């Protein structure tokens, strides 16, 4: 299986055809990661606001938990510098 994949890769490289540019791929990875972070934050944010409405002391905790998924985007951003 892996061997065939390898061979396929060789063939593709020999032909010089690129499926997707590296820069485009990096941009996509950041974009999709940001979407995922947004999706995750939607639920956490709603819950955090709910908790804050009951007890205002929870503001800091709520804020931290809400932006935690943002780390996915930072990790995805690393890809941009690697390629």
């Amino acid at each position, binding site marked *: 299986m892996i061997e065939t994949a390898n061979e396929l890769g060789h063939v593709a490289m020999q032909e010089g055809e690129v499926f997707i540019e590296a820069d485009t791929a990096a941009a996509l990875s950041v974009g999709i990661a940001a979407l995922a972070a947004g999706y995750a934050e*939607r*639920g956490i944010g*709603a819950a*955090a606001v*709910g*908790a804050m409405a009951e007890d205002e002391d929870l503001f800091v905790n709520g804020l931290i938990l809400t932006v935690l998924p943002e780390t996915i985007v930072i990790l995805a951003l690393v890809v941009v510098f690697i390629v």
Partner: protein
Amino acid sequence: MSLVGSSNPEYVVARVRARRGMLYSTEEYRKLTRMSPSEIARFMEESTYEAEINALGSRHGGVDLIEYALNANLAKQFEEVLDWSEGELYDLIVRYLRKFDAGNVKTVIRGIYTDAGREAIETDLIRAGEFDDRLIRRLLEAESIEAVVEILEGTIYGEPLAAAYEEYEETDVLVPLENAVDRAFYEQLLGNLPRGEPVRQYETFLKAEIDFRNADNALRLARSGAEIDPAEYFIDGGELFDRDTLARLARDLDELVEYIADSDYADELGPALRELEEADSLIAFEHATDTALLTYGDKLGTMHPVSVTPVISYILAKEREVENIRAIARGKEAGLSATEIEEELVIT
């Protein structure tokens, strides 16, 4: 509602969980059982019940103050939960909370039947259901039972009440009307439930509640030996009984107890059933059904964290708290000792 669904359950669940954390603990109940009614009122004033105690403090006193403050707070909390929730979540929560509407309708009908004043009826209402203030005001202003039936036209109680009203006119007893209200409530309870695992859990809980209600009624009928058709009181939708088995079993207490002991609820209700056979007391059985429901409710709250189940779990716990405090206050008024009152409480 967006493409990925709304994040409303998260919001409601977070608020409800915070509220749940503020409910009285076992430790606080122990303190309450050692207080006098006025001390209980003061203790409540320092917790979530502050606004209600202050608002009602000038008009009522003693145990009445506690009772009305409890009802008002229960209504306020549940109304808020309904305010927060939307869409499917609202639909699922309101199903259960409509039982307060049903209770209010019955209170109003009974009040008119016994010629109680508007004030007296109003203080006994628990405005926790779906009815808005306008509808309730119209119900309170109604002069006759016929007017009540007319006002409720268009709600789920309209048609069954209209049908039962004829029977009421012939016999002049309230039973057909009250049965019609109950039946309308239980019919909407299990009708058209949406799909999904959390909803299944909720359904199991609702069915257990109906089963327990049927079992309670059947046991009471069997014990009293009254010549009432058990099928009249049968509530449809449970797993344990169908109309015929209930009608048959309600005539024979031993057979009924055996039937419940062999059912799926044997684990939860077994000890209470034994007590029922020995001491001939229904109280233990009713407590056992309450505890079983509450334990199941607690379990519900943790299995599916973001769904309707934690909300229902909170609603049950809150209802239980209100009933416990009421039991403590009434027990104190009647001069029961702390240990006797503690036996009356349902705490998990």
